[in-house]
């Protein structure tokens, strides 16, 4: 990694440590989801549609998705704070390539998201979360979390750079939020009775991300869901990265 990039990523990480509200809120929200859903409606995990793994393995992927959503606006907000203070101009006038100025806070956010996913997975394991492929499942979950985080961070940073408004960094989270409820978030397809919701869930990319995680955890989803989920996340994270970098070219300091 380029030395300037390393220094800027470290700066981004220190910024998160100094102002941990966003990642901690995301983590707290996810842990809350995990515990409350498991305690409240975990009993339905005995139904045949959930397989042998129970409700914990079924609900766990949504906690990972909400974790990244909670902190995805961080990169955009860091960039915005630097622009408002004028400090971005000083970074812009340094020898660091301009794309690094945008990618570094995204990387910091992504690292934070993957770290908290690891912690959440460890907590899940304590509560009996199954891992179908052992350590490979854990690595797979971290990898999917990384791609999901890059997707959200990239789009939110790009939108902020184009609009120049701090609040706009949260647009992506607001756009993704309804997709969570139009998917197999709480129940498997077999138990969703509304035909329109079933149809929507088929074209909802979040469904494939959830099912990819479920394949890794309990193996309750078919392998092709894992493949599609991974492909969707690779494509979306590359698009998000391209969007953020093309937005960086439009910056006027």
């Amino acid at each position, binding site marked *: 990694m380029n030395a300037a990039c390393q*220094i800027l990523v470290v700066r981004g990480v220190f910024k998160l440590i100094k102002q941990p509200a966003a990642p901690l809120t995301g983590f707290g929200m996810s842990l809350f989801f995990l515990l409350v859903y498991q305690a409240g409606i975990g009993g339905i995990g005995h139904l045949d549609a959930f397989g042998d793994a129970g409700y914990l393995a079924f609900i766990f992927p949504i906690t990972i998705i909400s974790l990244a959503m909670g902190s995805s606006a961080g990169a955009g907000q860091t960039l915005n704070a630097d622009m408002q203070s004028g400090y971005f101009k*000083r970074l812009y006038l340094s020898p660091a390539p301009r794309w690094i100025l945008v990618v570094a806070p995204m990387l910091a956010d992504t690292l934070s998201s993957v770290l908290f996913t690891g912690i959440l997975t460890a907590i899940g394991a304590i509560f009996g979360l199954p891992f179908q492929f052992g350590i490979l499942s854990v690595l797979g979950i971290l990898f999917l979390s990384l791609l999901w985080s890059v997707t959200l961070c990239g789009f939110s940073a790009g939108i902020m750079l184009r609009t120049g408004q701090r609040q706009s960094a949260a647009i992506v989270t607001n756009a993704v939020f309804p997709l969570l409820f139009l998917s197999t978030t709480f129940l498997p397809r077999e138990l969703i009775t509304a035909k329109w919701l079933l149809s929507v869930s088929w074209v909802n990319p979040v469904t494939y991300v959830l099912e990819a995680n479920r394949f890794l955890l309990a193996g309750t989803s078919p392998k092709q869901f894992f493949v599609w989920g991974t492909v969707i996340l690779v494509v979306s994270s590359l698009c998000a990265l391209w969007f953020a970098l093309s937005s960086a070219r439009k910056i006027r300091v």
Partner: protein
Amino acid sequence: MSAEIEIKHLQKKYPNGVEALKGIDLEIGKGRLFALLGPNGAGKSTLVKIMTSLIRKDSGEFRIGGMNPEDHFARLRQYMGIASQENELDPGEKTETLLRFQARLFGMSKKLAAERADELIRLFRLSAERAKKVSALSGGNKRRLHCALALVHHPRILFLDEPTVGMDPLARETFWSVITDLNEQENITVLLTTQYLEEADKYASDIALIMEGRIHFAGTIPAFKSLVHPNPQASLEESYIMYVKSIISTN
């Protein structure tokens, strides 16, 4: 005297139709302390922004230290130090941390960065502010830190855009002592824009007068005074006002 900055036929028109630069030709010699003077909106900041690649030129060309900015992006960043009109500081960082970070960003090792930060803190008399957050600094100290950051990487040419705005007289004296020492002892070229003509009179070796996007005069201060004012003891400010008025009345 070799030219450190060479500008040829530089033109810039903003999207709103304002023609900020209408064909600038200028040479600034190595080791000179050069003041770019002119009324507000004359094109001074536009010229500095183009040379520091903050905005693009429409046409013309320029070289800095013999380098074309389009071909030597990273090298020129190391070669130039820039202190713009507005402070460019991270309010959440401490004075020393910000200086060290800037040094690291310019490729210095941790040890060298710490030494350079110490040196600049001493030079700009910021010792009492070393551990303070930028947001807690006074306006004058913020300005000093802003200028210190421009010097972290030992640049060979300094662009100072209205550098002493907001500094008290003592801070200005300290600032100019640092800049003139660098200029004289290390032969660093300084390009200054300022509205404080007494500062230009006292410290600059050459000036250029820019108005409505054109250079009207470029040369030494004594040459400018003798061209404009009948009294050889006249200050630069008196000569400047007389000259600008004559241009306005001619137009």
